[in-house]
């Protein structure tokens, strides 16, 4: 990797703004659904290329920066965006999948005859703005601001159904999200009082400062509690399964990719860019993180085994996989970090695929329980085929992309001499297989009921995105650098965080 050069560019800001600008347009055309959906698609189709246009620069070590406004006078902190490699990785995943989710949403919302579609599409657009804002945040205060916007904008989506269950889940979600925000304010304030800066810096900002061991542990726990709510680290996970009451595209993009990964992304920022590997080691902070995330991986998988509701099972699976990433980061080895980052994108494509399938089944057949899925593979072959690919991927079967990230995670565990963690990864792979394969088996190898006879495949708006994400999962598994150089990006980030010489990680070679 080259020396990092920064330059000023408004592209990151525009990328954040474009979906926000769509909100008034979406509201203005609330009576003309086609026009309204056009604005969503237009925003998605502008946002993704904007994000992509920054990628070549990032690969060449040029980072775009943009200062929006000075947001705090004393201390002097700006609302500032910086599209560095980690941010790019997250932004590319979120904005790319938003295009597919937008198409899918149209199919789903119209197919399921949902009400309040204007509010739905508007909130969705705000969520995406906030997500890209989180990805491109240059400092903790900017991160916090977008993090809170994301929390708020997700609320209308969680309570979308407006029934008692939705309201209960909404309250629970708010309680968790708002408490997390509060805890983050405290953590950020204390960080500023220690370090005198809030800017993200590869390798941390606490270097060369004499640290109080108790205070630093408290700050770390506050941070992890703050971002851990969104990342679903146990015991802070229970809002996520409850939030599955939201429409499925929300569960797919927000509660499997954007929102929850904003939490994981927060963990990556905090560990790699605020504390840094050295401080983490020195105060054994990685142990705290590894304990909680390791336990989460196993417990969430065990709980997933017992869920009969398809979306809830997927939700617990998400909880487990989010902690994979956190555990990879907690290993504090370059391989583990790379694996975590890759899993961030790989889990995104596979899990969104599974959720898309769950939504297609619901809209098409009105089935939500796993025990009702007998024989649907014959009715919806494309959907269930894609589901199988996603399930295989998450269970860690090559050549699907989640296998690649698991491979790196396991390597990281070995490099850190953490046999227990290696065991956790392997055991969890088995558990994944145990809770996913019965679904596949029911769908394809059990006879279906008579009620299936009249039904066929779901609408093309849904099936096409499903097939695209499934294909993406396979392609990224065969060649991680095939699309957008995900592997190079991840490896480059690890290299900068661990401040390794460039030769350490060979570029773009399939292991």
């Amino acid at each position, binding site marked *: 990797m080259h020396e990092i050069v920064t330059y000023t560019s408004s592209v990151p800001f525009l990328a954040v703004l474009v979906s926000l600008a769509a909100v008034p347009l979406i509201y203005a055309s609330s009576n003309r659904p086609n026009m309204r959906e056009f604005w969503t698609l237009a925003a998605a189709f502008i946002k993704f290329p904007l994000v992509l246009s920054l990628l070549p620069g990032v690969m060449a070590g040029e980072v775009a920066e943009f200062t929006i406004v000075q947001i705090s006078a004393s201390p002097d902190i700006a609302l500032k965006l910086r599209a560095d490699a980690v941010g790019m990785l997250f932004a590319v995943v979120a904005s790319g999948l938003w295009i597919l989710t937008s198409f899918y949403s149209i199919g789903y919302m119209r197919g399921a005859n949902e009400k309040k579609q204007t509010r739905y599409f508007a909130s969705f657009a705000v969520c995406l703005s906030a997500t890209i804002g989180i990805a491109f945040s240059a400092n903790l205060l900017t991160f*916090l601001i977008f993090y809170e916007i994301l929390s708020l904008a997700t609320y209308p989506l969680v309570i979308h159904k407006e029934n008692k269950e939705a309201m209960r889940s909404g309250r629970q979600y708010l309680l968790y999200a708002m408490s997390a925000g*509060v805890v983050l*304010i405290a953590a950020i*304030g204390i960080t500023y*009082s220690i370090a005198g800066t809030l800017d993200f810096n590869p390798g941390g900002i606490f270097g060369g400062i004499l640290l109080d061991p108790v205070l630093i542990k408290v700050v770390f726990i506050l941070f992890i509690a703050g971002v851990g709510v969104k990342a679903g680290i146990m015991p802070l996970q229970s809002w996520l399964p409850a939030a599955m009451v939201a429409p499925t595209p929300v569960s797919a993009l927000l509660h499997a990719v954007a929102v929850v990964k904003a939490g994981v992304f927060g963990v990556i920022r905090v560990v790699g860019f605020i504390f840094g590997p050295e401080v983490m080691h020195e105060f054994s902070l990685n142990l705290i993180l590894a304990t909680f995330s390791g336990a989460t991986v196993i417990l969430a998988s065990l709980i997933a085994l017992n869920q009969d509701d398809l979306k809830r099972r997927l939700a617990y699976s998400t909880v487990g996989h989010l902690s994979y990433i956190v555990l990879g980061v907690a290993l504090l080895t370059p391989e583990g970090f790379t694996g975590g980052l890759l899993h961030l994108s790989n889990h995104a494509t596979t899990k969104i695929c599974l959720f898309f399938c769950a939504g297609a089944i619901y809209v098409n057949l009105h089935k939500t329980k796993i025990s009702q899925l007998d024989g649907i593979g014959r009715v919806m072959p494309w959907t269930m085929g894609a589901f199988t690919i996603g399930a295989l991927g998450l269970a860690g079967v090559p050549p699907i992309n989640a296998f690649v990230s698991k491979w790196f995670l396991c390597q990281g565990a070995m490099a850190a001499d953490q046999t227990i963690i290696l065991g956790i990864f392997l055991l969890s792979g088995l558990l994944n297989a145990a809770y996913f394969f019965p679904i596949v088996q029911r769908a394809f190898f059990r006879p279906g009921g008579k009620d299936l006879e009249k039904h066929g495949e779901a609408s093309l708006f849904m099936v096409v995105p499903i097939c695209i994400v499934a294909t993406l999962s396979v392609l990224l598994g065969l060649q991680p650098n095939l699309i957008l150089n995900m592997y190079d990006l991840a490896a480059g980030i690890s290299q900068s965080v661990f401040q390794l010489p460039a030769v350490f990680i060979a570029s773009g070679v399939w292991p």
Partner: protein
Amino acid sequence: MISSQAPILIPMTFLFAAMLIPLVGAVNRAAAHLTAVLGSALALYFSVIGMQTTLAQGRISYHIAGWMPPIGIEFVMDPLSAFICALLCGVTFIVMVFGKRSVEYEIPQKEIAFYSLSMLLLGGLAGMVMTGDLFNLYVYLEIAALAGYALVAIGDKRAVVSAFRYLVMGTVGATFYLLGVALIFISTGTLNMADIAQLMPMVQDSPAVIVGLVLIVLGTALKMALFPMHAWLPDAYTHASTTATALIAPIGTKVSAYVLFRVLFFVVDPDHLRTELLNLLQIIGYLGAAGIIWGSIMAICQSELKRMLAYSSVAQVGYIAVGISLASPLGFIGAILHALNHAVMKCCLFFISGNMRLRLGHSMIPQMTNGLRKSMPWTSAAFTLAAISMIGLPPTAGFFGKWYLALGAIEQSHWIFLSALLISTILNVAYFFRVMERMYLKPQEPEGVDYSEQTIVRSEAPASMLVPTLFLALSLLVLGFANAWIVTNLIVPMIPGWL
């Protein structure tokens, strides 16, 4: 010309308007409202000119009747008083614009008294802010207080009782204050604030001065409704007419807080404040923190929107008290910024309760349903924005006041203050989302009927009420993004050098 006279022009404009309104009103009732609007606009103009001059050229001192201080009464406009004064005038102008329809509806036939008393109240408050003389401050305090009691009394049926309670408590507070001033006068022989500040180091160890200061703080704390001396506030705010509440709530307690700022940071000797008086500061802070929690919990328990907002005011006063108690630049910035933010958002929220009363005839939370979002979409949207700001979520204004206060608390390792600030955020979520949930989600009776199929008449508040409401709601976003500018250009100049 105007700039050198600004300190006296502002209170005098209000007092003159107060006298003029009954005369004008006797001829033409509608003209009373117009006079109040014009009077407050003029005062706002003077205060903006005065603020510009103060920031460019330093403090403006005006000697009443040409008598030199410390013998004569001095009116002083420095960055702090100019800022608070501009805030008062700005809020008053907007409330007066808003008031027309709401006053007609809620207190018919009493418009003339209402507008006249409002101007009198503002004359008193502006005088309190401008004066550089401790006794003169008492005089204006009584003008404001008497006008305030009368304003509260022109409300619903129970307003008279709450006004009486307000009167008793307010008089006790004013008496404490006067007693304190008397004790300081005995020791220093002067009433001029600047003069006392110079003499303080010589007399500050005398028990009379210390008791005097404590009495001043006690009296002021009572007037600003610092916990546990807040009991008069919820009743007074609930039963007064909405416009009166929207006028008193954002600025009434703030002016008392201003007196606290003035006395503690500009009259008392800094070294003294940091040693002997440290306990006093601490007590103010802990009471503030207790008020933050107590006010928020009580707000959760209320079933009437105005009463909920009143308890929320008790909590918000606590923030300012915590900022004062920190006695640091960050605390100062946080408290003043929060005073500004809270004035704007509370004013906006009381406007919203007024809009609801006008259209629904009540502002009871349990009776709100999701019909509101259809019938009053803009009012509901304004409520959402103001509520988000009250909770303190970025990028709205409310967050930044808390941000500076939290940083100030962390700077001095005041973990109790920090916890109170943060816990109150969660409590605020509870009481605001409780309302929002009903406003947006609670189905109308009878259950199961889809509201969209019913014909809900869109009955948004009239433009004269809606425009001020929306203006304030949107300004919360502007204030949030411009907070750094406000702090650098307006608040930092007012921090005393020693802090």
